[in-house]
């Protein structure tokens, strides 16, 4: 009796949380296939009848969304990759080497995470303008490092610290250079950390609004979040198109999570050392 009551006590709140979290996405997905007339009826129509692809046709062939999608993809991938490269080297340095000002530097890195975006827009605009990077892919990619780098470095430092130092000692004795140790031994063993950093960076940059709004003003350079926001005014109350566009925007993230989730190898370290 006690067990089933306990299960209920746990599963009920969890079920509520799941419904609350998942419902908006389900509604969005379902609504994307609804004709305009069925979108916001009262009482609400749960399933489209019949389902239509008109919204998707509109979004994919008669709007700028595909362009925005490509922009977002390039910028997110570029920013994620750059963040990964920098974070790996920085984190390894912080984790393994002892140098003067190390703790200060590590704390300083985190400060970047604390900056409210509103306060840095103006100075960043000035800098980007000076460098001629407004309305360029590179401009946004670099700027997004402010969002992605601090936490990535912090996360990866923790993961690198979790690798027993003896493994790296053994590799050095086996003849690996310091870089060899990083790439052959340490990096494979922090794969969960790399995946976490990749996912975090990609999602953060994919959904980012304020920097994109400020630094990519030309129509050709806009990213999906901006496009989506404008989309709703452009189409006034074409909620079907908005739903379809949102669906298109959410798809890559969902796919990435599905794929990478399998790559989280737990117990990666087991067997390396005693116990």
């Amino acid at each position, binding site marked *: 009796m006690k067990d089933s009551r306990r299960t209920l006590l746990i599963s009920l709140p969890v079920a509520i949380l799941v419904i609350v979290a998942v419902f908006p996405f389900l509604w969005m997905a379902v609504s994307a296939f609804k004709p305009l007339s069925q979108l916001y009826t009262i009482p609400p129509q749960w399933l489209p009848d019949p389902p239509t692809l008109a919204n998707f046709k509109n979004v994919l062939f008669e709007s700028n969304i595909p362009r925005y999608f490509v922009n977002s993809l390039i910028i997110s991938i570029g920013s994620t990759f750059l963040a990964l490269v920098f974070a790996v080297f920085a984190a390894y340095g912080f984790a393994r080497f002892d140098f003067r000002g190390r703790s200060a530097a590590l704390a300083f890195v985190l400060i970047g995470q604390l900056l409210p975006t509103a306060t840095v827009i103006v100075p960043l605009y000035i800098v980007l303008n000076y460098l001629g990077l407004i309305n360029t892919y590179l401009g946004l990619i670099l700027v997004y490092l402010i969002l992605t780098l601090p936490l990535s470095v912090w996360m990866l430092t923790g993961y690198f610290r979790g690798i027993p130092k003896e493994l790296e*000692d*053994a*590799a050095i004795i086996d*003849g690996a250079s310091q870089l060899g140790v990083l790439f052959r031994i340490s990096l494979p063993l922090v794969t969960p950390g790399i995946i976490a950093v990749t996912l975090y960076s990609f999602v953060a940059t994919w959904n980012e609004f304020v920097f994109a709004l400020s630094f990519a003003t030309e129509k050709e350079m806009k990213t999906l979040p901006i496009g989506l926001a404008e989309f709703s005014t452009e189409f006034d109350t074409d909620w079907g198109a908005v739903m379809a566009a949102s669906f298109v925007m959410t798809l890559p993230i969902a796919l990435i999570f599905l794929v990478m989730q399998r790559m989280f190898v737990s117990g990666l370290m087991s*067997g*390396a050392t005693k116990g």
Partner: protein
Amino acid sequence: MAQVALNKLVKRYGAYQALHEVDMTVENGEFVVLVGPSGCGKSTLLRMIAGLEEISGGTISIGGRVVNTIRPKERDIAMVFQSYALYPHMTVRKNMSFALKLAGVAQPEIDKAVERAAAILGLEPLLDRKPKQLSGGQRQRVAMGRAIVRNPQVFLFDEPLSNLDAKLRVQMRAEIRELHQRLGATTVYVTHDQIEAMTMADKIVVMRDGHIEQIGHPLELYDRPANRFVAGFIGSPAMNFIEGQVDASGTDRFIASDGTAIPVSARLGILKRSPAVLAIRPEDLSIVAENTPGAFPGMVSVVETTGPETIVIANSCGTRLSVVIKERSRLKLGEKVWLSADVSKLHFFEASEDGRRLAA
């Protein structure tokens, strides 16, 4: 194979000095054990030989070549770690091939070397497994295999058996010894277990607080410890120490701090009147009948049976004395016993901090 020579080796961590001008030589093919309590500097010393720690002063030579500034991979050494340090994302075979691969050896040569090492250690059926699929003993053997495959000049072992259970430890001890006899490799082995030191070493180096206390053959350290520390460290159960002084009145007796008199041999002139420490190993004490000449009293405190022998701990001479006897004992707690010491097996040490051995 090569000789390892340490000359006035110093290690400092900031203001703290971990090693104080250590001098030591490991001859070609010798199995030397560095033993001592935690923090004595033995692992630091080993890591300096390996090249994993910077040298603050003095030199280390391997094969006649000073290696202070030479990187680990060029020192031609292999190391077995306490926690095995196997690469978890590689199979046993890959673990063992790693070093040779880095050195650019051709794959067929690597395969041959791995097969050879695996055959020596009985690892053939395990070659395609990952470390997490192996038992502790198997992982330790893979760690050794990884070292053997490189055919180095010097083998370094850093407390490799500490994480194994007692039975496995005894078995692996013998295996390592056998391996050494087979390969004839110069070996430096670090442990805190004096039994491992006694059973495995050609030469033992006892260390304390960054100093070498004594170097010698195991039985040499056992029979003639250079100071009180070595005497108490080597041998289990530990040496008994009795504080007191030699009888000033001229009879051949040592008077313990509580007044108990213990007969000693005649040639102790230098010790008269100055405080000293008499030491005797538990197996050199015996329990005798009351009226035995030279016997002194004690009161039984603990009786421990190990199977082959019995350890009787008795309060006597102002301290607790351990006595090892071969027979089963029916002594009870609190019972009065009479003890006798083998006069030819007595050791004397200074009563001072150094506790150096006094000639007797």
